[in-house]
Structures are given as structure tokens and as C-alpha cells.
């Protein structure tokens, strides 16, 4: 904000800014979230509103973590990865596979995340790298992404079947905080989700590769000129994207309890919404966007029947595209 103030002060003829331009956008967002929560609490009572908000944070965790990978790939490689939702599914089914092979569940989850990262890396080598070299058109990239999504989703369905499954963990026990109740697994998903979001944010902020990725997403030409190893950044982007997708999928499966191989495509539009809301290529934005989408979906259950929850995500996506195509943190003039 200081730069904006200096810029405003330095040029005499600058247009008068509204008072809101002096408040940071995250602060506005936080205020909006709090006001909505207060309104909901006033109308529906504090307990239902808090309950929905907690569930919103659970959903926000996996949507935000899923959206980071999507936004990094979009920012670094200018690729709309329609197969990203299916990487989340892959993470979950890898977990089932490794658990079935005899690993204890937490270890199976960790190995599954690594396996998903490897899968993302391999898809880059097999599908995306050749297309990059041939400087393929948008349509070619779109169709390949859709093709890859179909291959991943239905290969999983071929092997594991399309029936509803669970991770085989204890879904009955719950924790109570006064009048609030939360499933133990959901509490775990919430804790791990928030922790992972914080760690990811820190890694992007302070590690070299995190900085390089953000630099790349921000301005590729400038990043290349300053000597960043392109191939390394691209590889690490896929690995990070896959790892976080695996984690997000596992958190989803843990929090929801039951799932089938089609959950990825349904979740994908929520991930897109979070990505665009946060500003394309902006990893912190994706985390915040994820929280906003998660909260909105869960809050909507106070107003409508819960079966409309996914539709709320889709509608939000369209509204965001229409009214804030640059996202919360995006700049007003950014074209790729």
C-alpha cells in the first residue's frame, strides 16, 4: 500500500482516489467475510452460522490447496489444466491403493501425494513438453488437457470401479466445542489444511524455488533474463502442483467421507473460481480465493438446500468472471 500512496502523492495530476484504495484489499475482504458472518449469525443464530463457517474453512482448505497447483501451472505455463481435478482424484485412489497394499493410512497418504507429484511430472514430459516445443495453439492445449482428464479419470474408474468408496478411516467419532460439533476427520482435515496452507505460503515467500515460481508466473521474460533456470522451474511447478493436488484430494476425501472417481470434475470448477478470484498466477490469491469459495458454499447451505452447494460454486465462478476477472489481488492490466 505504501507504493500506491507514494505514487498517488508523487504525481500532482493523479485522479482523486476513493477512500477504499487506501485500504488493502485483503483487509476489505476480511471485513466483508466478518460482516456476512455477523449477518448470518443474526438471522440464523450463532451456532448454525459458526458451524457453517467451520465447514467453510474445511472446504476452503482443500479448495485453496487444489487451486494453488492450478494457478501455478496457469501462471508459469499459461496452461488451463482441465486434468487438475483428476490429479486430486488420483491422490485419493493412490491412497486407497497403498493402504490396500498394507501401508498404514497416514503413510499411504504421504506416499500417495508423492505418487501424484510424480504423475503430474510424467504428464508434463509425455503431453505438455512436446506441445510446448511445437508451440501449440490454445485449442490444441485445451483438447489435450481434456483428453488427459478423460484418460486419468476413466483409467481410475477402469481399475477401481465407479462405486462410492471411503478411505476406511473412522468416520463416526466427533469433537465438540461447546454447542459446535465437528467430525474428528473433518477437524484433522481442517488442521492439516490450514497448516499446509501456511507452509505453502511460507515456502512461496522464502524459498528460492518459491520465489522463482512466482517470478515466472508474474513475468516470464523478465524471469528468464534474470537467469532463472526455466526447465527447473517448470519441473518444480509440476511437482508442487501434483503434490498439493494429491494433498487437496486426500483432504477432500477425509472431510467428505465418501467419494467416487467423478469428484474431480465437479471440484474443478470451484478450483477455477478460487484461481480466478485470487488473480491468475497468484498463489496466495488462490489460497484466499479457496477460502472465499469454501465459505460461500457452506454459508449457502443456510439459505438453500445443501444439494445446491456445487451450483453455488459454479454461479460464483461466472459472477467472478463477469465482475472481477482480474481477481482480488490481480492488477487491472494484466494480459497473457
Amino acid at each position, binding site marked *: 500500500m505504501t507504493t500506491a500512496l507514494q505514487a498517488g502523492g508523487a504525481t500532482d495530476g493523479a485522479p482523486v482516489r476513493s477512500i477504499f484504495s487506501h485500504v488493502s484489499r485483503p483487509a476489505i475482504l476480511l471485513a466483508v467475510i466478518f460482516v456476512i458472518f455477523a449477518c448470518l449469525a443474526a438471522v440464523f443464530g450463532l451456532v448454525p452460522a459458526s458451524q457453517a463457517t467451520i465447514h467453510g474453512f474445511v472446504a476452503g482448505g482443500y479448495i485453496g490447496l487444489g487451486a494453488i497447483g492450478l494457478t501455478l501451472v496457469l501462471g508459469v505455463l499459461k496452461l488451463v489444466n482441465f486434468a487438475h481435478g483428476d490429479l486430486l482424484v488420483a491422490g485419493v485412489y493412490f491412497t486407497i491403493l497403498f493402504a490396500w497394499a498394507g501401508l498404514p493410512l497416514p503413510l499411504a497418504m504421504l506416499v500417495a501425494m508423492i505418487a501424484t507429484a510424480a504423475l503430474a511430472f510424467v504428464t508434463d514430459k509425455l503431453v505438455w513438453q512436446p506441445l510446448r516445443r511445437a508451440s501449440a*495453439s490454445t485449442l490444441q492445449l485445451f483438447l489435450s488437457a481434456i483428453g488427459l482428464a478423460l*484418460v486419468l479419470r476413466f*483409467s481410475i474408474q477402469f481399475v477401481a470401479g465407479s462405486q462410492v468408496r471411503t478411505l476406511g478411516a473412522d468416520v463416526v467419532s466427533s469433537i465438540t466445542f461447546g454447542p459446535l460439533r465437528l467430525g474428528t476427520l473433518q477437524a484433522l482435515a481442517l488442521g492439516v489444511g490450514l497448516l499446509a496452507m501456511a507452509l505453502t505460503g511460507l515456502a512461496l515467500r522464502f524459498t528460492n524455488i518459491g520465489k522463482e515460481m512466482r517470478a515466472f508466473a508474474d513475468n516470464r521474460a523478465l524471469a528468464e533474463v534474470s537467469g532463472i533456470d526455466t526447465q527447473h522451474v517448470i519441473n518444480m511447478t509440476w511437482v508442487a502442483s501434483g503434490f498439493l493436488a494429491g494433498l487437496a484430494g486426500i483432504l477432500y476425501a477425509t472431510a467428505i467421507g465418501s467419494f467416487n472417481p467423478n469428484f474431480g470434475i465437479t471440484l474443478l470448477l470451484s478450483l477455477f473460481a478460487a484461481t480466478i478470484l485470487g488473480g491468475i498466477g497468484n498463489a496466495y490469491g488462490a489460497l484466499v480465493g479457496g477460502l472465499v469459495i469454501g465459505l460461500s458454499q457452506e454459508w449457502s447451505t443456510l439459505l438453500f438446500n445443501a444439494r445446491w452447494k456445487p451450483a453455488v460454486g459454479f454461479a460464483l465462478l*461466472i459472477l467472478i468472471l463477469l465482475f472481477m476477472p482480474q481477481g482480488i489481488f490481480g492488477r487491472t492490466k494484466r494480459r497473457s
Partner: protein
Amino acid sequence: MSVDFWINVGVLAGIYGIFTLGLQLNAGFTGLLNFGQAGFMAIGAYTVGLLVADWGWPLWLALLAAIVLAVLAAIFVGISSLRLRSDHFAIATIAFAEIVRYTLQNAEFSGGNQGVIGFDNEWRAAAGWMLTKLTAIGLGSYTQLPLFIAVWVTFLLLLLAIATLQRTPWGRVLRGIREDEDATAALGKNVFSYKLQSLGIAAGLAAVAGFFVALNVTFLYPSVFDPTFTFFGYAILVLGGYASYTGVAVGSIIFWALIEGTRLMDTAFSAGQQAALRFVIVGFFLILLSRLRPQGILGNRNEMRVRS
């Protein structure tokens, strides 16, 4: 038995041919990545089904209403989303198609997952009449033949109409937009309006396809209109050829012959696994074609320029 099977494949190829004509107009000739075609098709099919079954409209009038409604939906989607970047537009249209499907699945008026039934009496009467004529030339035993004829006559007429339209100055403006939007705008063309027209026509075609889907499946349920079917349309498009309307017909026949043909093979897989395998094959199709021959069988490489 086997002839009936292939007649059915022909019906599917014709229906998805009509469906893909619209995608070809959008993606192939206007550079517009419309990924919501399944949504327009659903609107068409459900309008026909509900108007006939619940309101007692005659079938032809319901078809007209379906086309009008799908075009109106396209105008709504277009006005709100056409100003977006092309990749954002694609995402917005997918979201639109998902909203349509979700609404049909969960709303009261559409019968939810029970679907809509009992709208095809008039069609059956007409088909019965056609069958008596077909019996006279010895083809009366193929019960799906009337639908096949209706679909393909419609498809070929529409194909002819749209290919003719493409050769008019109107069609050239669309290609101009695909090649260079700013230059076309600089020539004084209202790019937005042309894009909207392109999208509207595609939605109308999708509604016609939806009409035939309704007649083919005889009862409507939301998962018939999964957004995945838009991807089928794109597979047909790239297979037949980018920016080629004849390619749509060729692509659709090859695509459905391959997809449905796999049903005839004796495999050790369960029905569910075979269904999954078909989608895996479509996926590989898309990946390999966009890598090896992005312009498709009848397409022209020089026409391939969709930018973001």
C-alpha cells in the same frame, strides 16, 4: 440384429454431427471456444420434453420453442461472457453447462433424476407411418430406420445451409475475427455482435440435436447431458477436420463407429469397465490428434489459428 446396431450408431453419428456443426462454427470458424454446447443441447431437449409432456404442445411447435429458448440462453451467456479472454470464456461456458445440468437434476420442474417421459407419441405415430412405407420396399423390420432418416436428412440440410452461410460475406467476417479480432474491428465490423450470432446459431443447432436425443432415448434424464459430451463434440471436430463442415460428418461417423464398435468386441471386462475404457480411448484420441494431426483428417493446417 447387427444391422439395427449399426443403424443406431448412424443415429448417434447424425445427432452428434448436428451438435458438432455448432462447435465447428464457433471454434473452427470464429475462434470461439464454446465448451457449453451440452448445456444448450440439454435446454433444447428438456424444452421439447416438458412442453409436450406437461403442456400438451405439438411436437413441431415444441421444437421451435426449444430452438428459440436455446438461442436466448446463448445470447444471455454471450452478452455476459463474450468479452472475457478466450480461456476464461471456455471456463465460463463449462460452468454454464454444469449449472444447467445441476438445475435439471435438482429442480422440481424437470423431474430430477426421474426425468421426463411421454413426449414422443407424435413421433411414434410418424415413425409408424414411415415404417409402413419402408415395409413396401422391404425395410420395415428396422425400427430405428425412420429416426435415422429423419436425423440424417436434417443433418445434411443443416450442413448444407451452414456451409453455404460460411461462404457469404458474413462467414468471411467470422474468419476475420478468428484470424485477427482487432483488425476486423478496425474494418468497422461489430466483432461482439458477430460472435454473439455465431454462438446463437451454435446453440440453435445444439437444440435440434437435443430434440433428436430426446426422440432417441425416449426419456430424458440429466446425465444424458453431462458436459463430457461437449468434449465428444470436440473429439469429432478434431478427428474430422478443423474448419471443415464435411469433416464434421466424416468425424462423427468414424468417432461413433469406433466408440460403439468396441461394444462388439468380446472382452473379459465388465460393462462398467468397458464404458470406462471407451472414455479412455476418447481421451487418447484427443491427446494424440492434437499432437500429431491437429488439423484433423479433412482440415486445413493454415486455418488453425486460435489465439488466446
